[in-house]
């Protein structure tokens, strides 16, 4: 047991924060991610993580707290994407790409001003590849609060969103404001992703949004179970990732420790691949079940 949990793991305060904050963010991302993947909006979700970087770097300049910079930029981007308002996936991805390109261009500009004016070298790296072990405990309550908001919006929208994802015409016929629900959801994604980007880095915000949800979809056809599986997988990979990252400090040869992002991403990838044979088997069983009931 000692080899698995290296000394001081449970006593370490940064670890506690990483587990709590990281875990909370992971669950929120995973839950929202289920809808995101279902709606084919993975690209938009990814775009938000980098756009929030723009907001974060811009916030240095006007002296606003990074949190508002991150979240604000993403929500703004969501609004723009929604205004451009293309429903077909191809056109939507193109619009997402353009918005992301423009947003990143701005990020480049802000960071350029940052480094020349505040000489914070490596701030680029920190923002883009952020680490879970450097979250300060003061923002934990804020993280939790925002997480609850994002989750709340999603829970509120659950049924209209599910129906309009399956068929927007069906939803429209039932009087569901499809456009509004979609926009609200996109805003929720923006908040969740920017939150995650700030907390655990831009890489993991995308990874935890898409990976666990995509894996869960391979494991089950029932929506409620998809959310549960997604959250469970996300929490598991995050905690395991934190553990491995902590342990890696003690691994030979050097004592520098490997980044959490690397572990979590690798675990997600492996989980996704491992789910494929399960998915194939489930599909076969379901088709047999269909055959039986058709007689």
């Amino acid at each position, binding site marked *: 047991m000692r080899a698995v949990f290296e000394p001081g793991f449970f006593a370490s305060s940064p670890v506690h924060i990483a587990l709590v904050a990281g875990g909370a963010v992971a669950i929120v991302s995973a839950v929202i991610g289920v809808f995101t993947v279902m709606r084919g909006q993975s690209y938009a979700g990814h775009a938000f993580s980098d756009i929030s970087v723009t907001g974060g770097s811009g916030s240095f300049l006007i002296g606003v707290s990074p949190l508002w910079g991150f979240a604000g930029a993403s929500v703004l981007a969501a609004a723009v994407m929604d205004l451009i308002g293309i429903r*077909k996936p191809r*056109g939507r991805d193109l619009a997402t790409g353009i918005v992301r390109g423009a947003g990143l261009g701005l990020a480049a500009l802000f960071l350029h001003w940052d480094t020349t004016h505040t000489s914070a070298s490596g701030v680029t790296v920190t923002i883009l590849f952020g680490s879970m072990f450097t979250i300060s405990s003061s923002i934990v309550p804020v993280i939790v609060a925002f997480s609850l908001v994002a989750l709340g919006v999603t829970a509120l929208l659950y049924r209209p969103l599910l129906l309009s994802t399956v068929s927007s015409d069906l939803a429209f016929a039932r009087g569901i404001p499809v456009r509004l629900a979609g926009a609200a959801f996109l805003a929720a994604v923006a908040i969740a992703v920017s939150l995650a980007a700030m907390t655990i880095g831009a890489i993991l915000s995308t990874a935890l949004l898409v990976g666990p949800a995509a894996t869960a979809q391979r494991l089950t056809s029932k929506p409620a179970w998809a959310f549960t599986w997604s959250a469970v997988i996300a929490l598991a990979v995050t905690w395991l990732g934190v553990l491995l990252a902590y342990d890696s400090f003690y691994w030979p040869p050097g004592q520098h420790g490997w980044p959490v992002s690397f572990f979590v991403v690798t675990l997600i990838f492996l989980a996704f691949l491992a789910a494929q044979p399960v998915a194939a088997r489930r*599909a*076969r069983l379901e*088709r*047999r079940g269909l*055959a039986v009931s058709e007689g």
Partner: protein
Amino acid sequence: MTEQHSTGTSEAAAAPPATGQAPSGQEVLTGQEVLTVDGVGVRLAGRDILTDVRFGLRRGEFAGLIGSNGAGKTTLLRVILGLLTPTAGEVRVEGRVSTRRARARAGAIGYVPQKIMLDPDMPVRARDLVGLGLDGQRFGLPMPSRVRRERVDAMLRAVGAERFADARVGNLSGGEQQRVMIAHALISGPRLLLLDEPLANLDLRSEQEVVGLLARIAREQQVAVLISAHEMNPLLPVMDRVIYLAGGRAASGPADEIIQTDVLSRLYGHHVDVLHVHGRVIVVAGRGDDPHAAPAQAETGQGW
């Protein structure tokens, strides 16, 4: 074309039907067909999608592949195209077996798929799409030649699409896109033309125009045309033959012989009624005299 009870042989000789026996829809294949579906069976994931499907199509014949959704129409088309290997039997196109490798002979079969993703923003004109039907599988850029352009123009004229030859395909109406896709499929001069549910999203007028166009193509260009559809009524006036799929089995022959209560009942494996209402044909499942059997409609014509 005579039908008789067949035990699965594909001998050349056709014998007269035994008297007193209803046509079973089983054919004797003479070997002169453009398309020969010979005892094809497909089993996927433990289910028999198709069982012992057997029919032939000659040049110039217009046949409808009728069946409800899920009956196996698309599966059968995929087998004919060589995209799916049958579990039993084989398909021969112009005498050569249709396999994954044989598929590479471009232009052997013209195929019009069910849905085309045509984006109105795409900078592709009708004539470009038709041109791809000529040589889309060859590498490189198409060499601008007068001969090629004339062939494309001629094909567009033949399907009545010359008016919108230079318009973006994504901007065309359903019926117009259908014509372009037919031109695309025909331009390489195939002897067999397959269409997967071409009438599905068309309005009435376009439907009639497309059916008329296809019948004319079959006749004038001596192409065997096979259309899959779940409604047979639009095709009844022009079909030479119907291939009726139900429960994975097929009955093939002239419409007035196959669309009969006894033939279809045998095919379905339970009783169905074939009703003629105002010139339309409706196939209804369930016995009329059983108060507890709700008459679920198996096939319908226009007007549910």
